[in-house]
């Protein structure tokens, strides 16, 4: 009896502490449509400012792939009041860091600074939203820089092209069929007028969310946001959001790429619905079941037991529109992709037919909880998550409650989505083989 009481007592503080970790925030819209999210954390004198625009490579023309990302580079070129090269310097000389990134759906810009420099970050971000200034020197320099980025990250990297190859195979109509880095020929063709048209269309307050997290005073910060962003014209109200009906895939697609590699690799993509869909959370749990941790099904079987792979993983490439559930494997020396594919498929079969033991299901839930609790430990990632939840899930408070959506997933849900999506006719299989195996050549 005494033992039981002790257990209860032990559990109470846990519940209480889970409650304490709620992330408080305030959010509102400016008259021009800019959505503002504020979160106060006074534990350190620093502040993170993030502005996320709801525009990405999906909004590009097929003959201007790479454009949204190229434009992201130009956003550092300056404004009416900021000269070329000064943008970086302002942040750096104030003790801060900055960066930006572009995905299929969004482009986001951030600064992390000592908190007495909040005004500077607001001035910089409002300047480039209000009146960006780019010139031909900037365009030509960044054109080269972007092409070097492409080489460094993709062309000069083993397997570097896999994502481009996979998405090109997977989609026939939807603009996810090209990846944000784009094609060199279109990076070469992009022009000043096109950049300015893109800027006027997409870079308007109503198409963005601004998050400010850190050592701030709510009222003072609202005042500052109003001063810097309040009189930016609302601008274009009808944002182009292409989402053509992608015809359902009815049979398996396969392709082989010859690369500068020694270890063959296998990439499989399965069509899955968009983020926030009823099947979204079961799919994320499925991902953890298959490949999170060394006790996960794929790692244990293919890396530890059969030793077929040097690396294996699954990755939910799930976005605003329907995406892909990816599994990838890099073969160990001398192992065949055929065996790897067979074993992966056998693991999926086993899941579909035999289900999930209780203890394994609990394990997945514990992993989800740990990841959820620890993911926003840094103010910068927190500010990005807040904007993301607002723009793409229309619910900023998911920063606190998304865990409930995971918790409501049942074992049957996971098996249901595995049965529904992880089937041959729904997949794309991409093999990477060494270039030395390219081309059948006949010689005397």
């Amino acid at each position, binding site marked *: 009896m005494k033992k039981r009481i002790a257990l209860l007592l032990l559990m109470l503080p846990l519940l209480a502490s889970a409650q304490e970790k709620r992330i408080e925030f305030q959010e509102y819209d400016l008259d021009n449509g800019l959505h503002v999210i504020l979160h106060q954390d006074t534990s350190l004198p620093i502040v993170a400012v993030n502005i996320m625009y709801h525009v990405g490579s999906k909004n590009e023309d097929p003959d201007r792939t790479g454009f949204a990302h190229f434009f992201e580079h130009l956003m550092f070129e300056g404004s009416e009041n900021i000269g070329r090269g000064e943008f970086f310097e302002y942040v750096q000389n104030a003790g801060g860091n900055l960066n930006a990134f572009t995905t299929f759906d969004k482009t986001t810009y951030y600064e992390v600074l000592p*908190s*007495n420099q909040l005004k500077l970050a607001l001035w910089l971000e409002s300047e480039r939203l209000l009146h960006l200034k780019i010139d031909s020197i900037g365009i*030509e320099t960044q054109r080269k820089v972007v092409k*070097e980025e492409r080489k460094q990250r993709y062309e*000069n990297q083993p397997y570097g092209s896999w994502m481009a190859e996979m998405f090109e195979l997977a989609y026939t109509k939807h603009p996810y069929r090209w990846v944000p880095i784009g094609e060199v020929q279109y990076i070469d063709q992009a022009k000043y007028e096109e950049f300015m048209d893109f800027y006027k269309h997409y870079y308007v307050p109503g198409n963005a969310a601004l998050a400010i997290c850190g050592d701030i005073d709510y009222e003072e910060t609202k005042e500052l946001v109003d001063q810097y962003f309040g009189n930016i014209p609302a601008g274009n109200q009808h944002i182009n959001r292409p989402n053509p009906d992608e015809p359902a895939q009815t049979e398996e697609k396969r392709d082989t790429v010859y690369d500068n590699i020694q270890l063959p690799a296998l990439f499989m993509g399965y069509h899955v619905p968009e983020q926030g869909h009823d099947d979204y959370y079961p799919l994320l749990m499925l991902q953890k079941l298959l490949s999170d941790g060394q*006790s996960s099904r794929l790692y*244990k079987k293919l890396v530890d037991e059969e030793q077929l792979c040097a690396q294996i993983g699954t990755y939910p490439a799930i976005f605003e529109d329907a995406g892909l559930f990816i599994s990838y494997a890099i073969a160990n020396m001398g192992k065949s992709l055929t065996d790897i594919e067979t074993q992966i498929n056998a693991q999926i079969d086993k899941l579909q037919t035999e289900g999930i033991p209780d203890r394994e299901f609990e*394990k997945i839930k514990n992993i989800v909880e740990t990841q959820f609790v620890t993911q926003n430990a840094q103010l910068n990632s927190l500010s990005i998550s807040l904007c993301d939840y607002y723009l793409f899930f229309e619910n900023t408070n998911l920063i606190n409650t998304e865990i409930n959506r995971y918790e409501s997933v049942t074992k049957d849900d996971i098996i249901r989505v595995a049965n529904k999506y992880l089937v041959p006719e729904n997949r794309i299989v991409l093999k990477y083989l060494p270039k030395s195996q390219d*081309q059948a050549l006949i010689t005397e």
Partner: protein
Amino acid sequence: MKNIISILLILFPFSLLPAQIDRSKAPEPGTAPTINIGDYESFTLDNGLQVFVVENQKIPRVSYSLRLDLNPVKEGDKAGYVNTAGQLLGTGTTNKTKAEIDQAIDYIGANVSTSANGLYASSLKKHNNQLLEIVSEILLEAEFRQEELDKIIQQKKSGLAYTKNDPGGLSNRVSNVLLYGNDHPFGELETEASLDNITLEDCKAYFNSHYRPNKAYLAVVGDITTEEAKENVTRYFGAWEKGDVPEPVYETPEKPTETEVAIVDRSESVQSVIKVTYPVDIKPNYNDYIAARITNTLLGGGIFRLFKNLREEHGYTYGAYSNLSHSQEIGHFTASANVRNEVTDSAVYEILYEMERIRTEPVPKEELKGVKTYLTGNFALSLENPQTIARFAINSAIYNLPSNFYTNYLKNLNAITAEELQKAAQKYILPGQAYIFIVGKKSEIADKLKRFDADSTITYYDENGNIIDLSGSAVPADIEAVQVIEKYIEAIGGKENLKEISDIKTHMHMEMQGMKVDVTLYKQKPNRFNLTMTMNGQVMSQQIYDGEKGVASGMQGKQNMEGEMLNQIEYESYLFPALAVLEDDVYEANITNIEKVNDSEAYVVEIKKDDRLISTEYFDKNTGYKIKSTALVKTPQGDVKQVTTFSDYQKVGNVKFPYQLSQTMGPGSYDIITDEVVVNEGIAADKFKVD
């Protein structure tokens, strides 16, 4: 009355005219915040384990990071066993298999990783005890097993194969050899051979003699009080036994006496991975450590000089940075950038220019202020991660730093003058004593890099950091593939004589599994081809091309040639394919390299049609003869590289033919001997009939 007006005026800007800010210049910062380094507490267990506790309740998580303060180990022909021992840790205990350990870790959503000189473990606070139980068991009841060793070795070999294709990984790998040399443990590289030499005993011995609490620091960070930490650590690590740990000492690696250019040739590279690097003796307890750090930041930190110059001014790269790193043993300076092949020399020039400039020109006042503010701000930002405080504590212990080193850090940093900075630059930034090390495509970059080397000689390294002799082989800019092919044609008889020939019959023989195989090759103008292999008069295989269609037949049946196969046989069907390359625009030939074939130097010429590689041919630099060719052949077992060498050129009429061929395909190697070459005697048309 006057008072009221002034109050109103002050109020106005806030209440009525919110937008009246001066956009024309950057806003002034508010009062600089005080930066408080968080507190930590420390205690030492009886076994010598030193523990630092940093309490931080922002997230209900606790992490344990163990760091052993060890001298590096010279591994010799077993390079890799130390790391392997670190990886074996956590794969077995006296009571648990790897699968059981993995299961226990994942079940509580924890992270645990191990290495040769430490481990890291974290979990949510509520799983803290289970986490410690596993970690303690991994450490105190470790049992290394052969099957896990075998797995790790195989993984490491795959890792090596990966690294050899990853230019960044290759650069890091080989630069260790340049920086520290083979005599220092830091310069030892894992190779396939060294991995094969590693035994379970080596790993056990390393673990037993090095993993000792009296050489260890443990940082406990997160949602935990010192009292709890003390209780936990004593309970779970108190039984860890101390021991004598070897402390070998090594000669300090020297920097080069003058600038040396070194290249790892990676012919598929579209970018050069540049490193300007040399070993540096720098430690946090040196007087000029802070000045040296500011110098390096100004040169290549964040978005400072290297980034501005190479990226924002020249568009050479996505990013250019420098790094001045320290370790207890020896540190290094490295300036690095990835740049497209054609600007490699220009980028090296700019890096050296910036290194020289920081030594010779005093840093302007504004720039000095900027870099100090940057480092001050980043110091504050780094405190967001509670591990930073633990790192400060451990560094203080390891380097024996004064107790106020980190609390006074910002004060000392802001007191540094431009003169002190320049002095540090002259001591630590050494463009004249650096390796200019590049992983890239030699044929496109090497010639223009010679000028940076003190004696204009480039040293070439292979992927294992061995010096290889490619020195004579930079392709001279003044020779083209056409000239090489013309020289070959001249060598075998000249264009005129070659064109006199309208058919060739070549009788050859070889041995296959102890049996004699007859090989007959028929070729007829303009491009018909028949290759027949017979054994005891029985046709084993036949390849025929009639000028348009090709067919291959053998024991397994008949196959129409398509795509690459067809392109290939079409090429080979010319009486002299080299003539076709000269005269037919569909073929493109390029010199890609100069390589040694047996004892001769040869031009490597790639023959392409429609941008697809058909054949790679090697022409002797002196004699002009074709001495080797490589191609890929489709077999039932997959695609195999076929290498053919040609020798013993003999005159038949006015034209020379190679009488000895040697062919390797996969593991097999065959000598093919020519018995007779017959020209212009006519060949029946049905020899070239494709059904």
